[in-house]
C-alpha cells in the first residue's frame, strides 16, 4: 500500500468526514494543512491537482481525488475489510447515496456554505433569516430520516453518518439544535460521539465555532 495523504483543515466539515472514515478504517495517512486564509488552495501546485481548489483532497496511489463524498466512497471500496460502511446491496447503497447527495446539496451547499461563503469571502457579519430557515429544514429532514433508524441510512453505521455529522455538528453555531424538538437527531449525535475516534470530528467543530465567534457573527432577528 502506498502513502495516503489528506489535504485540508480541521475546521472544514468535509475534511472531518474524511478523517472519521480514515480512522474507522484504521488507515495511516499524512495530513497536510492547506491554509485557506493564506489562499494556499489557490497555488499553482494545488490547482494542478484540484482545479476546483477545495478541501479535502486525497492523494493515493499517484492519483488525486477530491470531494469528500467521492473520497470516502473510494476509501471504503478500496480498503475496507467488509462493506458495512458502504453496503454493496443495491437498495441499501441507494439509501446511503441519497444521504450523501442530501449532504452535498441540502446540508453543505444550501445550509452551511450559503452562510460561510459570504462571511469568509465578503466579510458579511449578519446571517439573513432565510439562511436560518435552511438550517431548520435540514434538522427537520434529518429528524424524519432517523424516525425508524438508529443511524442516518439504516440500522448500522455507514459513511453517510460521517458525512452528515460533520456538517450537522457545525451548524449549531448559527442555530442550536433544540433537543426537545429534535429528539432523534440529538440521540443520533450522542450515539456517534461514543465512537472511539469521534475526536476526528469534535476537535474541528470547536475550531470552526471559534472561527465564527471570533468574527462576531450575528443572526438577523
Amino acid at each position: 500500500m502506498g502513502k495516503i495523504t489528506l489535504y485540508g483543515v480541521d475546521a472544514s466539515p468535509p475534511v472531518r468526514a474524511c478523517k472519521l472514515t480514515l480512522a474507522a478504517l484504521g488507515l495511516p495517512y499524512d495530513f497536510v494543512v492547506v491554509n485557506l486564509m493564506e489562499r494556499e488552495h489557490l497555488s499553482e501546485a494545488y490547482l494542478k491537482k484540484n482545479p476546483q481548489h477545495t478541501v479535502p483532497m486525497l492523494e493515493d496511489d499517484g492519483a488525486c481525488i477530491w470531494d469528500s463524498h467521492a473520497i470516502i466512497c473510494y476509501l471504503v471500496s478500496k480498503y475496507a475489510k467488509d462493506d458495512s460502511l458502504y453496503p454493496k446491496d443495491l437498495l441499501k447503497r441507494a439509501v446511503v447515496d441519497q444521504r450523501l447527495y442530501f449532504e452535498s446539496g441540502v446540508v453543505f451547499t444550501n445550509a452551511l456554505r450559503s452562510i460561510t461563503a459570504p462571511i469568509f469571502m465578503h466579510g458579511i457579519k449578519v446571517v439573513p433569516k432565510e439562511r436560518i430557515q435552511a438550517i431548520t429544514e435540514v434538522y427537520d429532514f434529518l429528524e424524519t430520516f432517523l424516525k425508524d433508524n438508529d443511524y442516518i441510512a439504516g440500522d448500522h453505521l455507514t459513511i453517510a453518518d460521517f458525512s452528515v455529522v460533520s456538517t450537522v455538528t457545525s451548524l449549531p453555531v448559527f442555530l442550536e439544535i433544540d433537543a426537545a424538538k429534535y429528539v432523534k437527531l440529538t440521540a443520533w449525535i450522542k450515539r456517534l460521539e461514543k465512537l472511539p475516534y469521534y475526536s476526528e470530528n469534535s476537535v474541528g467543530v470547536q475550531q470552526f465555532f471559534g472561527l465564527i465567534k471570533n468574527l462576531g457573527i450575528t443572526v438577523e432577528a
Partner: protein
Amino acid sequence: MGKLVLYGVEASPPVRACKLTLDALGLQYEYKLVNLLAGEQMNKEYLLKNPQHTVPMLEDDGKCIWDSHAIMAYLVRKYGKNDELYPKDYHKRAMVDQRLHFESGVLFQGCVRNIAFPLFKHNQTEVPRTKIDAIYEAYDFLESFLGLKQTYLCGNNLTIADYSMVSSVSSLLGLAPIEQQRYPKLSAWLDRMEKLPDYQSNNGNGAQMLIDMLSAKITKIV
C-alpha cells in the same frame, strides 16, 4: 424484471438526468407526473415513499429510491450491460462521484434551486446579480474539468456525470448563455450532448420549459 416507475416533472433537471440514463440503458418505464406547483409531492402517499418530497423518485418493483444521482447509479449498477456509464474502477468512479456531487451542490443547489426556489415559492422576482455570477463560476469550473482532448466530463466515455450535468446546465442557458469564445470546451461538450439520440425528448424540451418558466417570472436582475 419488475416494473420501473419514474415520478417527476419535465421541467425538473434531475428528473431529466434520470430520463437520459433510463434511455441510455434501454429501459422501459412508466412515467408518473407529480405536479409540484400544486403540491402533489406533499400528498400522504408520496411522503410515505419519499419523506424528502422531491422529484425524481424511482419505484423499482415497489421499492422507492430518490435523489437523481442515487437513482442513476442504482440503474447502471442493476441494469447496465457493462460499467461504462458508471465505472467500477475506484479511481474512475471517484471522478464520476466528484462530478455528481459538484452537480448536486454547486450547480443544482447553488445555481438552479437558489434562483428557482425563492422565485416560485416566495415570489422573489428580482434576482440578485450574485446568483447569475454563481452560474458563470460553475461554468468556469466545468471548463477546467474538461481536459483539452477529452470528449466528456470524465474522459472519452459518456458517464452518468454527463447526464446529470447537462440537465442543469441546459436549464441555465436562458440566464447565463455559454459563449463559445469564453467557454470553448464547455460549449463543444454541450453541442456533443445535444446530438445524443432522443436528447430533445429526454432533456431538451424540459430544459426549454424551465428556461421559459424562469424568464416569464423573473422581472429584473438586481
